[in-house]
């Protein structure tokens, strides 16, 4: 294992002297590597990076984000994804390639104010982010409790391999959808569970930099067993199907296949055949998203939590 030196830094602080590779939030100044953000610097053999503790969300390709539809043109929706740019969701993405602005009514699928979970398919210095909902578990979020947290706290809320969020979900009997952009939606039947989950999420946000956070969250949620085994699948299934029953139906074949598990309660014959194995795939795909997010964040400094490694 490589040796890692960590220290607290603010902009302008010299992290290390020598011929290291600047990775994230680090610039070279003379023979020194200098931090550009407030955060925790990590110097390893492969390079030097600073895990920031503050900042707005900067979109990245393949990020899963939760956004609000704020406007509609004849060919796309504008989505507020809590970043410095509004994202675009092309109507073709929802209606399929044969979308016609004259024939299809965009308001039937998504209207202004709707919340969607989407993936960023493209973004660079010259263009605004482009979204897609053509994937498992993506699309309109019909209902839920909306919570906004700092995007830098997202990896901490997810926890290592989704541990933190699993704890919250299990203890409160809710489902928590997390966007990399710091928007969280909690769904569930029990209002007490919802408010408890919201309280736990706020606790994670406020105290993300402190040690023993997992224990404090568990004590807030009255969870006794520190090492909880796998999440019970039944809970996930009910919440995911519940959520999916109001998902927008896709008309194309390609999208039908990807959204089968989301639309399990839709009266469409093509989807019925696949509903039998929903229970497994529903939870695994959710897990996959979280693991994706968690891994991505740990690879990329901009949304990482500094003390995740240290505390877990």
């Amino acid at each position, binding site marked *: 294992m490589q040796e890692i030196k*960590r*220290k*607290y830094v*603010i*902009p*302008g*602080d*010299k992290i290390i002297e020598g011929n290291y590779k600047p990775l994230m*939030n680090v*610039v070279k*100044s003379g023979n020194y590597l*200098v931090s*550009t*953000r*407030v*955060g*925790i610097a990590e110097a390893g053999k492969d390079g030097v990076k600073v895990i*920031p*503790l*503050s*900042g*707005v969300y*900067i979109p990245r390709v393949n990020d899963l984000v939760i956004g609000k539809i704020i406007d509609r043109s004849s060919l796309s929706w504008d989505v507020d994804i809590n970043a*410095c*740019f*509004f994202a675009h969701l092309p109507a073709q993405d929802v209606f399929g390639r044969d979308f016609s602005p004259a024939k299809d009514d965009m308001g039937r699928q998504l209207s202004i104010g709707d919340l969607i979970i989407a993936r960023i398919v493209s973004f660079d*210095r*010259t263009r605004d982010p482009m979204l897609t909902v053509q994937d498992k578990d993506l699309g309109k979020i019909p209902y839920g409790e909306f919570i906004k947290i700092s995007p*830098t706290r997202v990896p901490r809320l997810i926890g290592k391999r989704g541990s933190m969020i699993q704890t919250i979900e299990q203890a409160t009997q809710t489902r928590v959808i997390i966007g990399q952009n710091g928007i969280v939606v909690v769904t569930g039947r029990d209002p007490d569970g919802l408010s408890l989950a919201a309280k736990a999420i706020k606790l994670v946000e406020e105290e993300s*930099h402190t040690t023993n956070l997992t224990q404090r969250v568990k004590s807030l949620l009255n969870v006794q067993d520190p090492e909880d085994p796998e999440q019970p699948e039944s809970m996930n299934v009910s919440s995911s199907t519940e959520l999916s029953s109001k998902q927008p139906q896709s008309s194309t074949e390609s999208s039908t296949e990807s959204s089968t598990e989301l639309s399990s309660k839709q009266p469409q014959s093509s989807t019925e055949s696949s509903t039998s194995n929903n229970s497994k795939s529903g939870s695994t795909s959710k897990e996959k998203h979280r693991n994706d997010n968690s891994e991505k964040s740990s690879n990329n400094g901009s949304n990482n939590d500094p003390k995740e490694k*240290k505390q877990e």
Partner: protein
Amino acid sequence: MKELSLMDENGKRSDGRGIDELRSINITVGVVKNADGSAYIEFGKNKIIVAVYGPREVHPKHMALPDRCVLRCRYHMSPFSTDTRKNPAPSRREVEISKVMRESLEPSLILSDYPRAVIDVFVEVLQADGGSRCAGINAASVALADAGINMRDLVSACAAGRLSENIVLDINDLEDKEGDADMPVAYLPNLEQVTLLQLDGKLTTAQFSECLEKAISGCKLVYEIQKEALMKKYFGNEMELKEEA
């Protein structure tokens, strides 16, 4: 007559400070919940609140730059910040200070990281006592760091001036009005670069060098306070990260 009121025979200034002494400085980070970054500074009797928003979408859109971020700065004095009511409309002085503040902060920011976006810095002076532009720059720099904007260095600012033959550090309102020269300086302490240098008054070459040197030494003292304020917000009183086994 003038010297007598500004400095006594023991070398003490009108407010009891020595010639190399700063006023008391207190910085609090993250005071405006709705802003992306914010800071409140008490620099002697100056009380200033700074809020930073961004990077965010530029409105009007034609102001956006394709290769970098736009920095907008607004320095404003509240009507109640001075002894006689100040008209809240932007004055010539405020427009000018907004400009010099923006130009002093710009070199510290890596604006090319956020093309087509804007960063807004709002500096609101709640109470003014001379040197408010320096205090504003100090708070704005901390607020920008709090907003998580990529910066090469913090910006620290401090003024120096001349009272008769004495070059003094950090001049206050009375010394600004009655003194012989006032020189605000903004400085990047780690990069050792000056980003703002203004001079109101007359100095000889030797006095100018001494004044600049003194202002820079003041900036370095201010930097330590800025650093401490940021560290306190993000890491508590822990200045060093303790490695776990």
